[in-house]
């Protein structure tokens, strides 16, 4: 028996106190250990079963699960997936054997062919040997060879001629990119041990594609919540037409195959309602009454009753409905048939329906394919449209508030797999269309050849159509560009995929939780979309968003947030709801329902009386709210389908009961069902009971107090729920839920900031950015990675101070920094302005030692193609010799090359390469010579790996190699370091240990930072970390730094202070220190402790720029820009201004002319032009004879002014070269520059 609401409430009352367990404050007594040995055992012997860290493995779940749903999607593990639903929805295409444009042709007896896809199979990636398939292809091989990870895709193309027997032909659709660790991947269920065997990290979690050796993933995108009508107020709506108002109700309907069709109901000031939708990127408007009547045979009276719901007292509403009904009279279509026929006649062309279909059929097709596509039955669509109309009128009347489309309440996630499936669907449709077009072309141009009975003809047609969907999907993944003629109901055409950079592990894993608002919003000038809304609590991390242009648009999921990907079984819900007292509209009839409302027109009165009041929801006194509850009849919806109506009071009871069942798992109510009860209010959100079971919703776990079990809460329902954060927040009788832990709202990366609750919030945001820029441990499978650039910290350490989640995510496998002894002191002045001092000895012992790996692929086949090689036979070969080992070089040259290269023309492993050294040698058959490519780089590098890459079966000659270079990067002055609290700085000086300050016990700090880094930034977390790190180092255990563990009564400083005191140190973490230079004790005692430091990837070696002379720009003769091209640094306008202000004109001339584009030119004193002096060829000789050494003066006599026709006034002046260019440009515009030469 379902508990009555009162009992469930009582339960929550009685249990609330006991339910809140010791989650928050009790954990502090625990002592953490580093578990080094345990980790070593796991590293040596990876598990044969489950992943080592379950949470890491779950990071890619939204990506992998959504991809899997392409192939299998449903409550039971059935064979049908999104793709099957898609091809079913695509339906068939028909073509006739005659030219249908020809009006005279009769379609009755002409042959007609109909074709469709019946099934699609995708194989796991395999190596192609010869013509057959060989062994499985593994992701690591794709990465190493720079190829794509894809599996063969085949479709069964079926056709029937004149509705005769069905024939079919398997067609290859190319190779489909496969997501790593998805159900089509060869390492889907691999245990950590198998993963290591397959050259992956033991914690590899997949979720990305490999395209040309590069790992890319489809970014999660925020889209409007599906199948839910939201009230909008947009000034831009008024631009749609003359009488359009800014009111609208919009709904994004999603079919079973995850393809969507949005539509908006517009309110026109003349009382009409127009339904707007876009189809293939064009917009269409249809009067909503036309659709309503086409959906169901109704009378005006019926419509009136349905829309007004018996609230005849509400004159605002009745007036509008009257206007609406009257306005429709003009169309002169009445019956359902007439309406359908009318719609069909208008949309025949748009829908591209078969030529022989009647208007009625097209009308039906229109209703099926365009109108509220998430619903199947006409009756359901009718009910939903009525609901939308009611909501719109309510909005116009000011009875309900506008819904915020930027709020996560009205949002869901566009999952990679769903987008992938949609895009495939469109491309499959394109194939069918392509076949149609091809046959039509044939019919028009070569009617004689068209024979539908001939398999030869058909296979010729099929072969002419590009069926390589695999290639298109690969292009989509490689570029992120959506090449589409429908637009897929999305707002952007590019930026769908990103590279999963392995800069360090933090960066890598945060890609999988990143969720973007859409590039459309990035260009928006208003910042409202970027706001952090309270509705996002627990779903999107408030801390982990970049600052700058993508701020607030690029968010990250909280670490507990899950995205539903499974299809839930909710078939029993309507019956369950009915049993709880929700009435059926049809069963009761409008009148009956009206009588169920006790007070006829009372509810509307309550609302409309206050029309002039502010539209915001106001708190009602209990009596009034009780009246509201009993008098309001609200819609009960499941996934955008009206399943009944009930009074608000009943709806609330139903919601409460369902929730209890859902959490306790009774009556088959799935846990992931969202039960959003919106209570009636004055001017608040439109009320109703909205349930959602579909995929792509954000859900998060919280504890349900009545039975102390975990409930999953969605972003829609959360807004109307009472969830306590900590047990102190529980209000008896009101609170129903409590957070698992206060850190639930933070993303993984934000959770890894120790003591983040002590910091000023922007600092935590900065740390989220910097943690992702740190040099760390990107992966363990270095020898099998070919990334363009990899950063590696060779001396990474496990942090002493780490939050709880650090262990749960197993971050120790990927160290991201080093523990450093940090003193906060102003010492020698080199720590000014965020610079920090590094101990030279610490540096010499390996502190912060990093390595950069750079990769280069050399493909001779591509080179040959580029240089215009025609033969398929390779003409370029790696090596120092030609055929028969004939050398084409001098002995001297050979000896020089052999110091670097082997006979195969490739560098030796371990060789140190400097700029200009030979990198590799290639023998060219055509020129019969060896060409040596030189190593070009600012810094020298070691050859780390040389990888020879062949084709699939290894039968081809070596044409492609991969060379990995290793660049040692010990920390140098100018390299950037940061703590985990957004405190970044560059190294300004490396002092020898003897000069560093030291404590009484002889400890010298590794890093010195300036105390001025703290007052304005307020990163108290760093102080606490220092304290905790110090005591952890002294006692030999790690410290738990989970935020929200301490409070006023139980302060962190006291806790760690006591630990320090126990170790014989000062309670506050201070120590008297001595100057290393004089040995004198400092006037003040110094705060010194152990802080985990990250080395950031920004290094001077990549940035320094210096030049004396160098390349200049062709046109202006000024130095070019760009470090790579050895350019200069611009001395710009502001720099010029400051030099002017200083009055240093000689410096100014030196910078802007002498060091830039100094040039000398001839000028004619008489006319003042520098463009008219020209050399006269006949006189040139005489000038040369004069024997003068100055080139300009020697030819002065040979120069003549074109205007003055004399060389009398010719002289030489020094000008910036651009000035000459300017004069020449001005001449082209008929402007003359005249110089007065004194």
């Amino acid at each position, binding site marked *: 028996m379902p508990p009555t609401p009162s009992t469930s409430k009582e339960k929550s009352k009685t249990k609330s106190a006991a339910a809140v367990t010791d989650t928050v404050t009790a954990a502090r007594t625990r002592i953490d250990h580093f578990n080094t040995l345990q980790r070593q055992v796991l590293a*040596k012997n990876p598990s044969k079963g489950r992943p080592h860290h379950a949470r890491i493995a779950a990071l890619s779940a939204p990506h992998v699960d959504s991809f899997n749903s392409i192939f299998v999607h449903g409550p039971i593990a059935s064979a049908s997936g999104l793709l099957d639903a898609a091809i079913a929805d695509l339906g068939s295409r028909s073509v006739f054997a005659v030219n249908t444009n020809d009006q005279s042709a009769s379609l009755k007896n002409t042959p007609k062919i109909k074709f469709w896809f019946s099934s699609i199979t995708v194989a796991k990636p395999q190596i192609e040997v010869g013509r057959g398939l060989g062994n499985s292809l593994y992701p690591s091989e794709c990465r190493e060879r720079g190829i794509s990870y894809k599996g063969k895709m085949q479709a069964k193309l079926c056709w029937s001629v004149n509705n005769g027997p069905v024939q079919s032909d398997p067609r290859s659709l190319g190779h489909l990119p496969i997501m790593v660790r998805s159900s089509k991947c060869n390492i889907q269920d691999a245990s950590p041990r198998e993963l290591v065997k397959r050259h992956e990290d033991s914690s590899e979690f997949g979720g990305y594609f490999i395209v040309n050796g590069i790992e890319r993933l489809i970014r999660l995108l925020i889209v409007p919540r599906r199948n839910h009508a939201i009230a909008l107020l947009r000034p831009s709506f008024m631009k749609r037409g003359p009488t359009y108002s800014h009111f609208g109700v919009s709904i994004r309907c999603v079919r079973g195959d995850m393809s969507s069709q949005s539509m908006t109901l517009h309110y026109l000031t003349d009382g009409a309602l127009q339904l707007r939708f876009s189809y293939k990127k064009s917009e269409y408007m249809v009067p909503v009454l036309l659709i309503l009547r086409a959906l169901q045979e109704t009378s005006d009276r019926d419509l009136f009753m349905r829309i007004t719901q018996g609230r005849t007292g509400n004159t605002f509403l009745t007036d509008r409905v009257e206007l609406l009904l009257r306005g429709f009279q003009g169309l002169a279509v009445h019956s359902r048939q007439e309406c359908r026929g009318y719609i069909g006649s208008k949309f025949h062309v748009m829908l591209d329906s078969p030529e022989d279909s009647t208007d009625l059929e097209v009308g039906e097709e229109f209703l099926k394919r365009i109108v509220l596509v998430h619903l199947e039955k006409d009756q359901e669509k009718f009910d939903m449209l009525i609901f939308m109309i009611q909501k719109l009128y309510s909005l116009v009347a000011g009875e309900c508030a506008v819904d915020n489309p930027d709020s996560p309440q009205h949002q869901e996630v566009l999952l990679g797999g769903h987008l992938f499936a949609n895009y495939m669907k469109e491309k499959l449709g394109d194939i069918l269309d392509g076949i149609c077009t091809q046959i039509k072309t044939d019919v028009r141009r070569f009617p004689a050849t068209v024979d539908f009975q001939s398999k030869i003809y058909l296979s010729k047609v099929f072969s002419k159509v590009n069926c390589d969907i695999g290639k298109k999907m690969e292009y989509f993944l490689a570029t992120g560009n959506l090449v589409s003629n429908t637009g897929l109901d999305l707002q952007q055409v590019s930026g769908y995929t990103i590279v999963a950079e392995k800069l360090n592990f933090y960066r890598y894993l945060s890609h999988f939780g990143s969720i973007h608002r859409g590039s459309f919003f990035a260009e928006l000038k208003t910042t409202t979309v970027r706001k952090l809304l309270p509705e996002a609590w627990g779903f999107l991390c408030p801390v982990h968003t970049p600052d700058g242009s993508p701020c607030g648009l690029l968010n990250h999921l909280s670490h507990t947030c899950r995205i539903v990907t499974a299809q839930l079984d909710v078939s029993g819900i309507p019956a369950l709801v009915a049993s709880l007292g929700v009435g059926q509209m049809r069963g009761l009839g409008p009148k009956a329902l009206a009588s169920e409302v006790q007070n006829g027109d009372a509810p509307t009165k309550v609302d409309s009386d206050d029309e002039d009041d502010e539209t915001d929801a106001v708190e009602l006194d209990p009596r009034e709210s009780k009246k509201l509850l009993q008098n309001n009849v609200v819609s009960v919806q499941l996934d955008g389908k009206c399943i009944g109506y009930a009074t608000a009071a009943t709806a609330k009871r139903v919601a409460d009961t369902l929730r209890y069942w859902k959490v306790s798992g009774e009556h088959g109510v799935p846990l992931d069902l969202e039960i959003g009860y919106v209570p009636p209010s004055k001017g608040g959100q439109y009320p109703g009971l909205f349930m959602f079971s579909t995929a792509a919703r954000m859900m998060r776990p919280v504890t349900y107090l009545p039975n102390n079990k975990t409930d999953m809460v969605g972003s829609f329902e959360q807004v109307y729920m009472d969830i306590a954060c900590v047990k102190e927040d529980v209000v008896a009788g009101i609170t129903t839920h409590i957070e698992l832990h206060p850190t639930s709202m933070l993303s993984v990366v934000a959770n890894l900031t120790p003591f983040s609750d002590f910091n000023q919030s922007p600092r935590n945001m900065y740390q989220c950015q910097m943690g992702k820029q740190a040099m760390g441990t990107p992966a363990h499978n270095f020898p099998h990675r070919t990334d363009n650039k990899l950063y590696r910290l*060779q001396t990474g350490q496990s942090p002493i101070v780490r939050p709880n989640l650090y262990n749960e995510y197993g971050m120790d496998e990927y160290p991201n920094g080093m523990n450093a002894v940090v003193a906060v002191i102003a010492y020698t002045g080199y720590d000014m302005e965020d610079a920090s001092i590094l101990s*030279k*000895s*610490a540096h*010499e*012992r*390996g502190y912060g*030692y990093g*390595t950069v790996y750079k990769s280069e692929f050399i493909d001779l086949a591509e080179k040959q193609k580029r240089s215009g090689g025609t033969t398929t036979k390779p003409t370029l070969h790696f090596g120092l010799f030609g055929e028969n080992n004939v050398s084409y070089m001098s002995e001297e040259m050979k000896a020089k090359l052999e110091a670097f290269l082997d006979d195969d023309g490739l560098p030796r492993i*371990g060789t140190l390469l400097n700029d200009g050294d030979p990198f590799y040698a290639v023998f060219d058959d055509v020129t019969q010579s060896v060409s040596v490519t030189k190593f070009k780089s600012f810094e020298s590098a*070691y050859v*780390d790996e040389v990888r020879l890459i062949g084709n699939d079966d290894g039968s081809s000659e070596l044409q492609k190699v991969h060379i990995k270079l*290793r660049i*040692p990067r010990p920390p140098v002055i100018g390299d950037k370091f940061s703590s985990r609290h957004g405190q970044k700085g560059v190294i300004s000086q490396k002092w*020898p*240990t*003897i000069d560093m300050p*030291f404590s*009484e*016990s*002889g*400890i*010298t700090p590794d890093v010195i930072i300036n105390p001025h880094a703290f007052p304005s930034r307020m990163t108290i977390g760093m102080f606490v970390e220092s304290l905790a790190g110090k005591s952890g180092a002294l006692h030999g255990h790690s410290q738990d730094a989970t935020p929200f563990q301490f409070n006023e009564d139980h302060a962190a400083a006291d806790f760690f202070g006591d630990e320090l*005191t126990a170790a*014989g*140190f*000062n*309670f*506050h973490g*201070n120590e*008297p220190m*001595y100057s*290393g230079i*004089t*040995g*004198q*004790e*400092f*006037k*003040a*005692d110094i705060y010194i402790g152990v802080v985990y430091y990250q080395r950031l990837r920004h290094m001077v070696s990549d940035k320094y720029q210096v030049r004396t002379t160098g390349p200049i720009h062709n046109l202006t003769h000024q130095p070019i820009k760009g470090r790579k091209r050895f350019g200069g640094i611009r001395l710009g306008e502001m720099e010029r201004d400051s030099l002017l202000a200083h009055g240093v004109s000689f410096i100014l001339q030196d910078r802007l002319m002498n060091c830039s584009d100094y040039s000398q030119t001839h000028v004619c004193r008489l006319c003042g032009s520098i463009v008219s002096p020209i050399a006269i060829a006949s006189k040139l000789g005489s000038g040369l004879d004069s024997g003068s050494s100055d080139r300009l003066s020697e030819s002065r006599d040979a120069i003549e002014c074109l205007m003055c026709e004399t060389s009398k006034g010719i002289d030489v002046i020094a000008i910036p070269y651009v000035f000459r260019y300017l004069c020449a440009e001005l001449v082209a515009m008929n402007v003359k520059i005249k110089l007065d030469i004194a």
Partner: protein
Amino acid sequence: MNLGDAKGPQVTIRSIDHERKQLSFILWNCDLAVANALRRIMMAEVPTMAIDLVDIEQNSSVLVDEMLSHRLGLIPLTSTNIRDITYTRDCNCAEYCQNCSVVLTLNVRCDSDTNRDVTARDLISTNPNVTPYFSSEEDAGVVICKLRKGQEVRMRCIAKKGTSKEHAKWSPVAAVAFEYDPHNKLRHTTYWVETDALKEWPVGPNGAEEVAPGPDDPFDYKAKPEKFYFVVEGTGVMDPRDIVEKALMLVHAKVVFVVQDLQKLKW
């Protein structure tokens, strides 16, 4: 102890802890500058031996050449008889020779199915006086790298004499504790306190050596630090006594050089 009676700087040895390689002593009746000079010289100028050059013949371990060389450099080598070896810069040889260097070979190959730890024990020295330091017979030695089946390291390591001024690997000490005035009678520092300095600031181990001032004792503004508490903790390459002794000799030598230079001056 009456300090006023002594003529010059005096040293009182407090304890020697061989296991922890620590020597604790008090330097008194001495100026702060001299005491600090001794500290700095112990840390940075006492020469020791450390691997400086590595000729790598074969390295198929997972550690790259430069990392392996760096690790080899940091291995402490016994340097008690450091005086027998000259600095390479003072030697007549071109690159290195027996007089200025010691060659150690590392030649390990793993052929077993279990991983093989390459440790300092595998370093074979050509000079019995310069070998990797082990704290005891049971000491397995510093792990240099780990080899898997089939991997091999084969290299010649050339150890040279040097000082920590150049690189920390030549430092004979791990740390030098240095303190004066444990009760802050000179008021060189100001203790940061919330309520009470006596409660919040623990008295260090040297506190017992001096008499704590009473609350009403007058401040002697003329007083200077003259008693310095040292604890020298060696890395094992030489006895801490050696370190102090050699450092003192170096202080002495520095003074002698100045005297010699002064004598060379012609008036």
